[in-house]
């Protein structure tokens, strides 16, 4: 299986440590991967702005960059949802983005291949899980609180839940939007910030030390608000938590035996 890693444009520029965490994680888990040079952006910001033409152009670039891979993995529920569901244009019926069907959000991928079986890992922290709306309601990672469908696996919870010492705190509203919404965060600054502040208050009340999510964009929104008002909350992508928490690689036999 040839795995291509898609590091979203804003993660590349603003949160490189998330990309590096995925690299560390994959190396630790023995997953071979490549990071094609031709990648830039999945096109989501253009699609949500209604600019289908520009979105399609980037969809074709995405397709070309990942044409040779069996699976495309990305540490973003939102980008994955876009690539999977929105590459096709409802209005014109045109389709770009044949890579959509092969694209997986990171946690979803790790659960699918059962990558953490027998790996162990420890994270003695109180973690607030911020549900990414697009991972939840578009990729159907877990069950939205509105839905009465049969239970589904929530990959982030499944992965973190297996770590020793972790406490996932109970939120009053477990899947309300953080208010980011791309351009919404700028154009509707007042409402966007109020939404984010309400989320932060929920995590604080629940006693979280670290807020995590499968989406960096949600975390940037929440972290920006929290830092400005001096909240002690930390914000880390789930890849960072997993990379740190997984037990170090079993030492090589020669290391155990010592120099002969």
């Amino acid at each position, binding site marked *: 299986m040839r795995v291509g890693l898609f590091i979203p444009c804003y993660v*590349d520029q603003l*949160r490189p440590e998330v*990309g590096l965490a995925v*690299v560390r994680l994959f190396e630790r888990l023995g997953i071979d991967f490549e990071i094609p040079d031709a990648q830039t952006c999945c096109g989501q*910001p253009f699609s949500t702005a*209604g600019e289908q033409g520009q979105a399609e152009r980037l969809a074709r670039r995405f397709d070309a960059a990942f044409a040779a891979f069996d699976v495309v993995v990305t540490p973003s529920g939102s980008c994955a949802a876009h690539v999977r569901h929105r590459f096709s*244009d409802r209005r014109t019926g045109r389709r770009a983005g044949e890579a959509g069907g092969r694209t997986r959000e990171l946690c979803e991928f790790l659960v699918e291949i059962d990558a953490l079986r027998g790996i162990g890992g420890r994270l003695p922290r109180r973690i607030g899980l911020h549900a990414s709306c697009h991972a939840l*309601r578009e990729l159907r990672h877990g069950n939205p609180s509105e839905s009465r469908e049969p239970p589904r696996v929530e990959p982030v919870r499944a992965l973190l839940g297996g770590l020793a010492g972790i406490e996932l705190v109970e939120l009053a509203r477990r899947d309300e939007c953080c208010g980011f919404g791309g351009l919404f965060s700028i154009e*509707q600054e007042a409402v966007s*910030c109020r939404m984010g502040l309400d989320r932060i208050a929920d995590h604080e009340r629940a006693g979280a030390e670290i807020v995590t999510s499968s989406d960096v964009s949600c975390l940037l929104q929440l972290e920006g608000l929290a830092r400005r008002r001096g909240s002690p909350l930390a914000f880390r992508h789930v890849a960072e938590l997993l990379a740190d928490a997984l037990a170090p690689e079993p030492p090589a036999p020669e290391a155990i035996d010592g120099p002969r």
Partner: protein
Amino acid sequence: MGHVSRARAFVADAERTGWHDQALWFVRAKRDAAADLVPDWEALRSEAAAIKREALERLPELWIEFEAQARRAGAVVHWARDAEEHNTIVAGLLRERGITRVVKSKSMLTEECGLNPHLERQGIEVVDTDLGERIVQLRHEPPSHIVMPAIHLRRGEVGETFTRTMGAPPGLDDPDALTALARSDLRARFLAAQAGITGVNFAVAETGSLVVVSNEGNVDLGTALPRLHIACVGLEKIVPAQRDLPVFLRLLARSATGQAISAYTSHFRGAMPERELHVVIVDNGRSRLLAEPEFREALACIRCGACLNTCPVYRRSGGHSYGTVIPGPIGSVLEPARDLVAHAELPHACTLCGSCAEVCPVRIPLPQQLLAWRGVLAARGIHPRRRRIALRLAAEILARPIGLRLFGGLGRALVRALPAAFVDRLARPWTRQRALPPIPASSFRTLWKRRQSAARASAGARDAGDAGMEGG
């Protein structure tokens, strides 16, 4: 002034915003609990969605069937192409009979058509009899919610309104006392009314009957006392058969308020002896929407308001911020169909969180429709200037990896070099309430490349070392 500035003004009152959000979240939570008690809630939603879609497919024949059945049962059926025709028909019916006092039970359609001001201009008094609707009528405000028209008001504000308009003692804010006061004031108006106007929740083609769902008994009183009942119904309210009703009645109250069933479900079929029943069927843009494959499903809406209650933007911006008869997600889909330019901000007043689609009892794909409107807006070049520039610039930068590398690198270097306060000002409005993230010196790509060459170098050194040992 559009949604953005009205929403900003609403949010500026942090305490009211918190209270408004909590009040609606409480209703959403009641809806969740009510859905829990229905064994197969999701299947029920699918059934309702299928019935509505079938009804939309067969709309013309169903209405013709309705008309024939309603006439047979003794009702008079009128067709109104638009709001103006609707208002003219209703006013004509009242004038012909010399009627000057009318009671009305809540109807978003008559709100949409602007019936009240039309009748008032002709010297006809219209009293809204739903409590919430009456409160906003006394305040000369539009409803802020399609099911709870006065949800934006606190009881103290209702007390002030009643003091001003009904002589309530100042400072009265006890809900029971306020309700009792409104009730006795309304009772006299019911008794004096010469006609009752109602909206309609469901028109049944098979029987020619009408169903109106309410909680306060005002529909029954307002139609039982006067000799004339005028029922105003939008084209989208048709359902094929009587057996379809339970599907919708089980969903409607649960989705709207979390009640298992509303207090009153009133069925009207034909006129009672010595009475008149007139049904005014209104198009007002609905048939145009029906012809739009991307948006027609919005006509399946049963006006439960669940999408408003769950919408995190609606809860924090208030119904009036939308500047439309129907606010919230469904309004942001329906209203641009009437006037795209005037409502250009509405499809963007949304984070695409998707919650609305999950609660909708008839499974309207609201987020996809909002996205589709954004596409229509973009195709017609209707963007605020700032958005247009930002998108064009971003598209150029992201078109090639070199663009992202160059502009990203340049941008990060600048932000790191410039004084923080200056950068903060440049990055507004993002930084009005948010700190900028710490800007890294290197992109992921650079760090990754560096890591790879270091790994290659150390692998090379190890190989060299191994070779040396073997050699030695």
